[in-house]
């Protein structure tokens, strides 16, 4: 992974097609909210299936918490759409079959010469794509737990939400 993709660094504003074929820009998907972003190998990987089941459970909280989720792989949009539907995921998947950002981000999984997927990597991001934390998920235990994601999103939200402390009563 590129050395600056760590806490305090900034992810590039990637522009890719989503699972429905629409051209999307990451900053637009963030839309002013914190983001949970993960690069994943593909639908076929059992570790990804286990991790996504975790994320699908998490979306029930995220959907009411002004937070976005985005997942990126080298799978084609229609493959991502099928994977997403099978999981019951309700967030946006981005498709990079040309591996447009893989070299730039240094996220090619070199040990898989068949699929040439992204190295599983998760980020918690500020709305301006600054990295709060990065998680190397090459080994499954390197991936964030839901408790870690909750902690990160609380920290980001506390920093960006000016009304984190409820406004005092009007006089």
């Amino acid at each position, binding site marked *: 992974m590129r050395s600056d993709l760590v806490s305090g660094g900034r992810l590039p504003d990637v522009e890719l097609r989503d699972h429905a074929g629409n051209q999307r820009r990451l900053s637009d*998907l963030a*839309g002013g909210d914190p983001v949970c972003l993960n690069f994943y190998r593909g639908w076929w990987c059992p570790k990804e299936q286990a991790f996504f089941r975790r994320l699908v459970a998490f979306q029930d909280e995220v959907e*009411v*918490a002004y937070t976005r989720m985005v997942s990126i792989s080298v799978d084609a949009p229609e493959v991502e759409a099928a994977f997403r539907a099978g999981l019951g995921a309700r967030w946006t998947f981005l498709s990079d079959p040309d591996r447009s950002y893989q070299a730039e981000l240094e996220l090619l999984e070199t040990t898989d010469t068949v699929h040439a997927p992204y190295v599983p990597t998760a980020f918690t991001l500020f709305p301006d794509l600054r990295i709060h934390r990065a998680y190397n998920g090459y080994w499954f235990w390197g991936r964030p737990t839901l408790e870690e994601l909750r902690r990160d999103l609380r920290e980001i939200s506390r920093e960006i939400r000016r009304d984190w402390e409820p406004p005092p009563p009007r006089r």
Partner: protein
Amino acid sequence: MSWIWLVVEGDELRFVPGEEREPKGALRADPRAHDPAGDPAWVSLVLAPDGVSLPFDDTSVSGALRRLLAGPPRRLVTTLLRDEVRFAGALLAADEPEELAENPFARIFRARVLQVGSGILGRVAPPTGPGIARYGGGAPWPWDRFG
């Protein structure tokens, strides 16, 4: 806050800028719904009966939003708000009528299908998800940011 007024007169749809005074009977819609250069569209329009509305946070509304996010992409969707907190319907637009066969909001109030000409409805990429909460009063889902 951002919205545009939608006025439904029979089978006709008319949009009025949100800055203008509220037209009689108007509902608040996502401002991106209106496109003066938009293509003709088929519309599945769900409207609450006169005198009826639901809190936007009603579980039936939340459930419809979840089904929309999990389902196939739509050309355009906007909820319709009576005021800052009251759900009064939804508008789904498509290029072909078959795409409107399933409208999750039709489980809340009755839906009717309309055909509208060009210059009325736009196209809006689907929301990022999985968010279903609005950004406070007066921002009809899926308007996707504060302000």
